[in-house]
């Protein structure tokens, strides 16, 4: 019953862009499977010698087994859980911070706005992986470094989007009128501005999650993400690449999962953008 409106909105969304609709369902399934993996009838991801070493994929062993005979499917699901959770937590933190900073930049006077914009320009000047490397160098490899890196990489674009959208909304008549009737800054921002910038923010957050997964897996691939025995999708790819010529499934299993997750998130982001802001383009050939 609670799902009724959700399904209703999803139908509209799916009708507008079937690809994005499918992607959202796929992503839902991936998240559920990854989160519920411990409840599924699978070998534990850390059970060594559960199967012969480096077995090829088969009907029982969909992604094969690794060099220690662990079930790759269990490991991929565990890795996916880490990757998805880490980027979700980081992007959540980045969104909260980004919305707050962006709103302050848009609402405050010129000086503070200039400082915030300049600062996000500076942070934005560091390519994502480079920023990740710097962070891991400072705080040491691990989950915390991955989260910090994702936050620093995704924060500047969120701040920019929030600032631009909030500037536009603060210029509207209803904000002027609310100001005129004596509303406090908090009331102005929370009641009149925030609800009306949600569309660009949600779209940007969707993209940020895909960037987050990308950054996390890249760091793990370099061995700077979560440390063994924990293994995210990137770490699995790193381990697998050693055996790439003899057991390519060690790479392909996590790679397929990772690519589908990132792709779905990107499609959802694009779908949201087009859904809320459809353009009617003309056709040149008639």
């Amino acid at each position: 019953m609670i799902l009724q409106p959700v399904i209703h909105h999803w139908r509209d969304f799916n009708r507008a862009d079937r690809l994005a609709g499918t992607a959202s369902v796929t992503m839902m399934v991936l998240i559920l499977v990854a989160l519920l993996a411990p409840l599924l009838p699978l070998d534990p991801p850390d059970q060594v010698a559960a199967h012969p070493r480096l077995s090829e994929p088969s009907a029982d062993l969909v992604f094969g087994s690794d060099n220690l005979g662990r079930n790759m499917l269990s490991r991929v699901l565990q890795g996916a859980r880490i990757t998805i959770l880490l980027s979700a937590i980081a992007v959540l933190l980045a969104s909260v911070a980004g919305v707050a900073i962006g709103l302050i930049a848009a609402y405050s006077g010129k000086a503070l706005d200039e400082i915030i914009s300049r600062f996000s320009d500076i942070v934005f000047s560091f390519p994502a992986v480079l920023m990740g490397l710097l962070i891991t160098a400072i705080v040491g490899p691990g989950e915390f470094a991955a989260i910090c890196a994702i936050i620093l990489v995704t924060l500047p674009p969120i701040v920019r989007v929030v600032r631009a959208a909030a500037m536009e909304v603060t210029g509207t008549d209803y904000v002027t009128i609310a100001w005129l009737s004596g509303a406090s800054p908090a009331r102005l921002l929370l009641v009149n501005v925030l609800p009306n910038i949600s569309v660009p923010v949600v779209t940007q957050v969707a993209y940020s999650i895909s960037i987050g997964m990308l950054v996390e897996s890249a760091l793990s691939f370099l061995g700077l993400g979560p440390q063994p025995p924990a293994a995210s999708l990137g770490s699995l790819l790193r381990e697998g690449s050693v055996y790439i010529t003899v057991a390519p499934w060690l790479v392909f299993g996590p790679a397929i999962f990772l690519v589908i997750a990132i792709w779905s998130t990107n499609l959802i982001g694009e779908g949201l953008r087009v859904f809320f802001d459809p353009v009617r383009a003309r056709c040149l050939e008639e």
Partner: protein
Amino acid sequence: MSQILKFIAFRVGSALLTLIGVSMFIFVAIHMLPGSFEDVLAPRGPEELRQQIADKFGLNQPLPVQYVKWLSAVATGDLGISLITQDPIADSFATRVPVTIELAVLATITSALIGIPLGLWSGLAHRRTAVSGIARVAGSFIMSVPDFVIASVFLYVFSRYSLGLTVGQWVPWHEDAIGHIKSVILPAATLSAVGIGLFITTTRNAVIGVLSKDYIMAAQARGEEPRDIVRGHVLRNISNPLVTTLSIYLAYLIGGAIIVEYVYSVPGMGRFLVQGLLNRDYPIVQATVLVIACAVVLINMAADVAYGLIDPRLRKG
């Protein structure tokens, strides 16, 4: 004319300000790194030795003084010396920067030449759902595959079935020209793949955006040929989003090609940085990050200037 010059001067000044901020950011970050220079060079050395090292690198001076000294040294081209090898870092850059630039240029040309026409074609044919849909799916798919996954696939395919390309080894140009080409193709192709996805998607979206504008309808209403409309109105007006994409992609290539250089053992800037980090060779990290970040700031500045040249409405401060 003078308006354009002033606009460019304004952009350059603004970039310089950002550069100063970037250098401070790096300086502070490096000083936050765990383990001091003394710990790296003489972990259990006697106190005098540690003192000597501190004096040599000026570590006893207040931070602002150190910062100014570092910056003025950088300004004269002195990037410091490696802690481990004691070689001037500038000398290592002389061999490594050209490698990264070569890859960046190759990848940019390939991906732009493939991605932009495909995106243009798919955007213009947006009503023919099959063509357009395939291009859209392909673009977003390629864009979503991380570079190290592409690299792994290439590694697997090209080492398993020896297809004549060198895998995981870099052959410098002056040693063996043909061998160089063979070793350059895979890293360049990996980097291009990312760019192709990016260019297809942004070009397609930009074209669809421009086609919804009234001036396109006005051009149609004047009976202009579709070819002329594309050449005269569409290309110019999609240039700005393309410049944005190009600048993001170049920034990725200059600084973010780290993983591709790592996977294919390419002796470029990215690998240099990773090695420096693993060895805790902080002067190398500091210099590499500075050079990369400066390059990115300059790329963004060039993009800002290009926006103004393309769209006269943006020629303001």
